[in-house]
């Protein structure tokens, strides 16, 4: 179940980065805006696999050097934490874009009304922006969650023991490749279908009170 934990942690971290990033990209100073633009462009243009390698090795190395500078013995960084951080940084770039689009989709009048009421930016974020953008953001975020569950498989390459890696080890030990890979596939698929059902309910909850839109496709 390490896969699930990593996916959940990475998605949460990505969401936190995404909220900051979307806020920075929309309302930040020009410098902040450009830096976030650079971050999202680079992360979205480079394969996750390469990013994971760079962040995994460079990240653990950097942390150990920092700790060394502070005069402590180097620590062995927990694979789970490293995995969550690495995938979280990747997810953050995507969720920044999703949330930015969702915030832009809020009718401008609602935010102006909140400002006119004299709400502080924090209160406005909590009471108006986040709830109002949720229906627009949920389809994109749902996609991101599904990507997060599947990206955990990539951690197999840095030798982390999650579902795919364990499956390969078990399969090569027993020579029953087909059985194990199909079983793992079914596990991932169940997670996806289960998530889809939950996301459908959440979306209906987030859209409550909105006039129903006829299927436009």
């Amino acid at each position, binding site marked *: 179940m390490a896969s699930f934990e990593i996916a959940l942690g990475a998605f949460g971290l990505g969401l936190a980065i995404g909220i900051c990033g979307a806020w920075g990209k929309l309302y930040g100073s020009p410098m902040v805006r450009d830096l976030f633009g650079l971050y999202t462009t680079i992360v979205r243009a480079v394969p996750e696999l390469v990013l994971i390698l760079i962040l995994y090795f460079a990240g653990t190395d950097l942390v150990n050097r920092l700790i060394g500078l502070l005069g402590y013995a180097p620590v062995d960084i927990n694979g789970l934490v490293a995995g969550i951080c690495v995938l979280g940084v990747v997810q953050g770039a995507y969720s920044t874009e999703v949330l930015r689009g969702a915030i832009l989709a809020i009718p401008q009048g609602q935010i102006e009304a909140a400002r006119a009421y004299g709400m502080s930016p924090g209160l406005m974020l909590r009471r108006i922006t986040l709830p109002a953008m949720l229906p627009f953001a949920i389809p994109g975020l749902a996609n991101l969650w599904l990507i997060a569950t599947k990206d955990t498989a990539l951690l197999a390459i840095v030798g982390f023991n999650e579902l795919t890696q364990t499956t390969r080890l078990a399969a090569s030990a027993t*020579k029953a490749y087909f059985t194990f*890979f199909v079983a793992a*596939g079914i596990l*991932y698929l169940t997670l996806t279908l289960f998530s889809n059902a939950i996301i459908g309910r959440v979306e209906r909850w987030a859209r409550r009170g909105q006039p129903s839109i006829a299927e436009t496709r």
Partner: protein
Amino acid sequence: MTPEATALRRAAKASLWLQPHRVILMLAAVVIVLAAIRFMRWDWLPAYLPLALEGIWRTVWLLVVTATLGISLAIPLGLAQAAGPPWLAVPARAFCTVIRGTPLLLQLWLLYYGLGSLFPQFPWIRESFLWPYLRQAWPYGVLALTLSYAGYEGEVMRGAFAGVPRGQLEAARAFGMSRWTAFRRIWLKQALHRALPTLAGETVLQLKATPLVATITMIDVYAVASRVRQETFVTYEPLLLLALVYMAITGVIVFLFRRLEARILTRLG
């Protein structure tokens, strides 16, 4: 528009782009690049350059082949889901769900290790003319990436086919076009136009999926980078260069799709 006005507009655009903070950022970037060239180890580069070029070529080849095959599979898949009879629509939807619901790495390993360990058990496969190919890694890589692209694009094409207004198809039939001509001239074309921006994004995603084939011993540009790292013990430089190469390829893909989009005169309602 007069030439002066054009020049004025261009200057205005440039000054908008060249704001002070951007200049500082660019200077910082130049300093970082120079520092990277000066202080990092690049002496391995000349020795591995031919191999790296070969790897880049193989990555691009893989991308083009799988995207082409994948889209030609995705069109019937999307059509089956959008307008096909149930006995075609249900398997097509099941295929897309399974492909989209499992990690590509798992599919790749299932095909390579699973099928690869299954095939030698059948003598008639070993004796067939296909065996020399089936013993290599690349058919499995191409197959897995093609199926994955087809699965995702099948879903995109379903939406695109369903999004073409019915009136267009009825008009085509009223002109006396046969079903096939109407499909080719009206339905497919309009669906592709609609799907083009999504397809551009999906193709970038496909590019980012290609390094996975390195895990089944295909030598693409990613595999070259990891080989450099193993042989020379240089840790970060090959990875940074690799990231740069992928960003360049992404830029080319985005540019090509933009050209394609600009060529098509669309008037979507």
